[in-house]
């Protein structure tokens, strides 16, 4: 029942929801959540390709682990910035964050 097609459809749906969230939200936290969703969709796809096409090669699993690490790092840095921004300005609304614009 659980075929490659089903896994890919789930991944695509997740990616779409994440992309929409990242583009439509103005809150930094919400944007990062969208990005998390897109990365998650990418990992679902990677796992599905490994499991249904080349289960004997472990490189696929390694790739998923690296992406997970990158995700954790991104979360750390992103929430650090959000916390700092909130402390400095009292808001994490991205519409107001144009300070570095030339």
């Amino acid at each position, binding site marked *: 029942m659980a075929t490659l097609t089903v896994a890919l459809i789930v991944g695509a749906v997740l990616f779409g929801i994440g*992309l929409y969230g*990242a*583009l*439509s*939200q*103005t809150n*930094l936290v919400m*944007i990062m959540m969208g990005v998390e969703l897109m990365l998650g969709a990418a990992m679902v796809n990677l796992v599905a390709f490994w499991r249904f096409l080349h289960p004997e090669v472990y490189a696929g699993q390694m790739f998923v682990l690296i992406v997970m690490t990158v995700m954790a790092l991104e979360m750390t840095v992103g929430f650090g910035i959000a916390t700092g921004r909130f402390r400095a300005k009292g808001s994490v609304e*991205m*519409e107001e*964050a*144009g*300070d*570095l*614009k*030339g």
Partner: protein
Amino acid sequence: MITATLTILGPLAAVVLILLLRRGASALALLGTAAGLVGAGFALAGMANGARYAATLPGLPGLPLRLVVEPLTAVLSALVAVVGFLVVVYAVGYMKVEDGKVRSFAQVSFFLAAMQALVLAGDWVLLLAAWELIGVSSYLLIGFHLDRPAAASGAARAFLYTRSADLGLYAAIFVLVAGTGTSEIPATFDVGGPSATAAGLLLLLAAAGKSAQAPLHGWLQDAMAGPTPVSALLHSATLVAAGAILLIRAYPLLPPGVLLVVGLLGGLTALVTGLVALAQTDLKRLLAASTSSQYGFMLLALGAGGPFGALAHLVAHAAMKSALFLGAGFFQHARGSTAFDHLTGAGREHRRVFLGFVVAGLALPGVPPPGGVWAEDAVLAAAFGAEDAWAFVPLAILGTLLTGAYVARALRLLWRGEGRDTPVAGASWMGAGLAALAVLAATLGAALPPLARLLGAETEGLGLGAVFGLAATLAGLTVGWYVSPGRLLGPLRGLAESGFRIGGGFDGLVARPALATARVLSVFDDSIHAVVLGVGRLGFAAGRASRLADERGIDGLISALVDGVRRLGGRARELQSGLVHKELLLAVVGAALIFLLLATGL
């Protein structure tokens, strides 16, 4: 040849030196004219020994300038040199009380050089050039007293009259050169046919203008505004003589029909201007009218077929008339005017000057002892010997009668009456010139037979002409002495006094057409001026248009480019909003594009 060219170069060198040194003008002019005199004397002596010279000077390409020294030109050259020298001697005295020595002596010397060139020219082109030069120098000399309106208008009138007539010379030379293909004077005499007639009549027009023949005689009266030595020079051997000289030299060219016209014109002029002379109230104006009259005699003799008679009269008249003018100038300095009202009794006061005046005056109509009788006889003999004697003889006799009458009138007015004199400065120089010319006038008759031999002309004995001439002269003198011109001329007097200026004068013949031409030319000139200005304006407009194109076009293009770049930059800046979600969107769009490219298989 060198001695002959000295006649031209001597006065010319004097002009240059006078203008360069600007002092000692009288001495330099004397030296220059003396050199010319010596040259002319040697040339004449050479002629007597049978020598003939001709020289070709480099001129225009294909038109070399030729000088010829042959008996006729040598005699004329000697005449000009002698009269010129004596007049300059006189002028040294005359100019002592006048201003402008440098100018006057330079102009007189230049005049003499030009006249010698005219006389010696063996080529129509050189003759024309000399003719023009004497025209311009006579204009300068007549207008010598620049500040006097009479002098200025007299000079302008003389210039206009003679210049208009000069066109005849131009046309004649054109006809001759076109007909024969050469500009050498003797060679063009063979032209023959209608060309000869046309050229002859055109030459007559030029000569009538210069020699003040009717109806172009008016200017000579007004030319009296110049200084007296200048008048003497103009009337005796130079300007006015140029016309007669031209016709004498061109005599072989003239066909019989033209000769008849020449003779009749001369005879009529002798009569008309004789009447004018009789009515004048000014000594110099009387002499001027007399000059026209005497040149009329020369043309009469020429027309009657006696070129030697014309030449003899020209030579004799040169001496007589210059002596008369010099005497008039002396009286002018003594009384401050030449009007007869101021001159009454002047002759009685200055008896020696008056003696010279009388000698020259009596020679004019041909009273036997002085030399004029020979010349007068030569003219009358020619008239009697002509085919058309019926026309020429009465004119000649009447002209002689009138000459006697006006000479007698002038002498009487100078002798009778009382007047107060002022001392005359430079009397010795003036007297010397006058005395020499009076002696010449008295004795020149003796020189005519050898002159005739030199020129190869035969002189006739004293025949019928001499008797008639003498009778007419004596009758004229008697009438002139005893009868006042008022009674003599009757109703004609006013007309004669103004020089027969019928219907506003003969100005209408020359001055008005000349002025009308001048106006037309002025309009033409103005239109050319307008065209030139238009071209200038067009250039300005083109310049302005080009400047506008630069400012609006090129500058505009550059600033438009700058604006465009700036606006584009503005647009590009708007993309860089610094808003995360917008830049994320850009990234997504970019990624989508890249995917699309990869998917289409590029």
